[in-house]
């Protein structure tokens, strides 16, 4: 298409789209007015008046609708990030296993992929939910290790309770020390030694403070309350069921993506790596995988987006994700159209940020010379 004509067509399209949106919006507003409804986002500041089962930020029923929606959004983000990470680990492992010489392993992975891909995700979620509910009640909790409770109310384990500024400083010190040590050990920068010694020093100082300074650190172990387990760190059965369902479902798809990516690398690359004396593992890690990534990454983006969107099935099994909180807010406030607009905007933003981040990574690969030809 010629530049000028192309521009005109684009402009006309844009104008038509905007006109359509305006038309629909005017129509909706007019009809809402005729039905006696009062549209607007003012309700967001009013108290939500409903509780939410789990939240990453402090929340209670007297907080605003806006905060309730934020709680739902954060829950969605939490399960999406955890799901993408776990599905990638599991999916890559399975994809590599599928190409192994071991026939049994190959067959098992293939069966897994077929079963998972050919059953509806909602059904799988019901299955995981039923599995979590089959765990014993708190009073008869399974205790695989002392202090860890597996119950139908969730999984609970001891956690560090920190009180006061010193406690947080000590914890921060430890975290930084561990992160630095990890970086130095795996990335092996030139100043690795220096970093390692600094990390050791920091760790020793934190330990000293913790042992001699009484910084208000203690172990918060879960214990049985009247109805529930209290204390410790708890993960709800709904979150676990949703996470398991999303992870398993996406890992099957990712494993196929990984397999296709690895197979797209010419056989000669393996042979060349072998003749250089690299082991099979080294060949995979250093020669084949980097080339396969150019096929894998774009497909991975769409798996991540699918996982994020699929997390909206949460409401069926009782996890308070964004859709669940949106539904309750619509029910409570009566502002159905507005809440749905918010939901559409939030998913759009979420998915656009996932694809932006991944496209950046893709571009970086391209810059390193691994782009698709």
């Amino acid at each position, binding site marked *: 298409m010629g530049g000028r004509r192309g521009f005109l067509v684009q402009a006309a399209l844009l104008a038509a789209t905007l006109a359509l949106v305006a038309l629909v919006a005017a129509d909706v507003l007019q009809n809402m007015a005729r039905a006696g*409804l009062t549209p607007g986002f003012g309700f967001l500041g009013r108290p939500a*008046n409903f509780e939410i089962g789990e939240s990453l930020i402090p929340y209670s029923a007297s907080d605003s609708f806006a905060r309730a929606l934020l709680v739902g959004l954060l829950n969605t983000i939490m399960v999406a990030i955890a799901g993408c990470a776990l599905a990638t680990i599991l999916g890559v492992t399975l994809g590599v296993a599928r190409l192994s010489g071991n026939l049994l392993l190959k067959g098992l992975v293939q069966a897994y992929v077929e079963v998972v891909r050919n059953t509806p995700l909602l059904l799988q979620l019901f299955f995981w939910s039923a599995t979590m509910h089959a765990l014993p*009640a708190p009073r008869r909790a399974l205790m695989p290790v002392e202090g860890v409770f597996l119950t139908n109310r969730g999984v609970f384990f001891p956690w560090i309770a920190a009180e006061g500024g010193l406690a947080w400083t000590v914890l921060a010190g430890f975290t930084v020390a561990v992160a630095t040590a990890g970086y130095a050990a795996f990335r092996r920068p030139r100043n690795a030694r220096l970093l390692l010694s600094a990390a050791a020093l920091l760790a020793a100082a934190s330990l000293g403070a913790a042992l001699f300074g009484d910084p208000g650190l203690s172990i918060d172990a879960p214990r049985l309350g009247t109805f529930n387990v209290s204390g410790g760190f708890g993960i709800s*059965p709904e979150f676990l069921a949703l996470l398991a369902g999303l992870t398993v479902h996406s890992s099957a798809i990712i494993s196929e993506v990984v397999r296709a990516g690895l197979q797209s690398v010419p056989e000669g690359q393996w042979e060349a790596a072998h003749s250089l004396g690299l082991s099979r593992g080294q060949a995979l890690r250093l020669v084949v995988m980097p080339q396969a990534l150019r096929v894998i990454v774009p497909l991975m983006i769409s798996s991540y987006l699918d996982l994020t*969107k699929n997390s909206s099935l949460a409401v*069926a099994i009782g996890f308070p994700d964004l859709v*669940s909180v949106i539904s309750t807010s619509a029910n409570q406030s009566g502002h159905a159209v507005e809440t749905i607009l918010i939901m559409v905007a939030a998913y759009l933003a979420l998915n656009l940020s996932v694809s932006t981040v991944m496209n950046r990574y893709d571009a970086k690969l391209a810059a390193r010379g691994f782009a698709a030809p």
Partner: protein
Amino acid sequence: MAYPKLLPARLVATFVLAVATFAPSPAFAGPTLDKIRERGAVKVGVGTQPGFFSPDSSGRWQGFFVDIGRALAIAVFNDPDKVEFVSASPQQRLPALQSGEFDILLSGVTETITRALQLGFHFGPVVFYDGQGLLVPKKLGVTSGKDLDGATVCIQTGTTGELNISDFFRANKIAFKPVAIEDTREFIKAFEAGRCDVMTQDASDLGLKRALLKTPEDYVLLPERISKEPLAPAIRWGDDRWLEIVNWTVYALIQSEELGITSQNVDEKLASPDPSIRRFLGVDPSLGAATQLDPKFAYAIVKALGNYGEIFERNVGPATKIGFERGLNRPWTAGGLLYAPPFR
């Protein structure tokens, strides 16, 4: 580069539905009554619980609310079978009613000011006076809702119960952990599996759900009712005549019980000298022309389905497996709240 898929089909569908909700077609394609006559059947939105609404083994719908739907079909078509029942979850049913998926919702919906004025629904007369209850396993040894500090509570999304429960715990300064589930079967399963200490819903609904549990005798409904739940038929705004047909069909059921007219004796009552009975049953046809209804519509309803009391007793009364007491759902003359304005 692959283009990102932006939105799940489900979200888009919801959005389109929401827009369609307010688009001109359903609300202004002429009054609902025209559509009903054209279609030749009343479309009724219901739930899925035996006693109130469920298909029997031959696929025929049965239940308390189903009978009210059939009474409407008699009022409009003089035929209890010119009615279609469509089930919808509590979360879906109000949007579905708004978008015209059915002509009336008879699924145990509570009349509230938000639903009336913010969502734009009219409610017919209350057909079941109820209140929200708390169902707990007997082995918890709990006797009052106030003992439930720290409990986990299963609630169903889209219901008034989802909102009342927060008020109850806040008012009593105790805490709880909600597990909010949309799907009715998943909701029951979660409670039965012990995921929650308490299940909360309309007391009637809990009674119906308890009957579905494997060991109903292991559960007890706590005595308090934490809210008022007047269950009433709901319709869209903008259908005055349809609303009046709904009103007077329900009143006919209530009035016949007050007058002592039953499916058994309705034919004898045709010979009654009492002018109010003669007008009610259409022996004296003076009410016919103005109402544009068959002057004998009340007769036909009672003949086919019985009066309010008979419908209650047959579907959920003490003699059934569900075993509800009449309570407030008795005629005002017997100390209840059922009261019909005069048929004159």
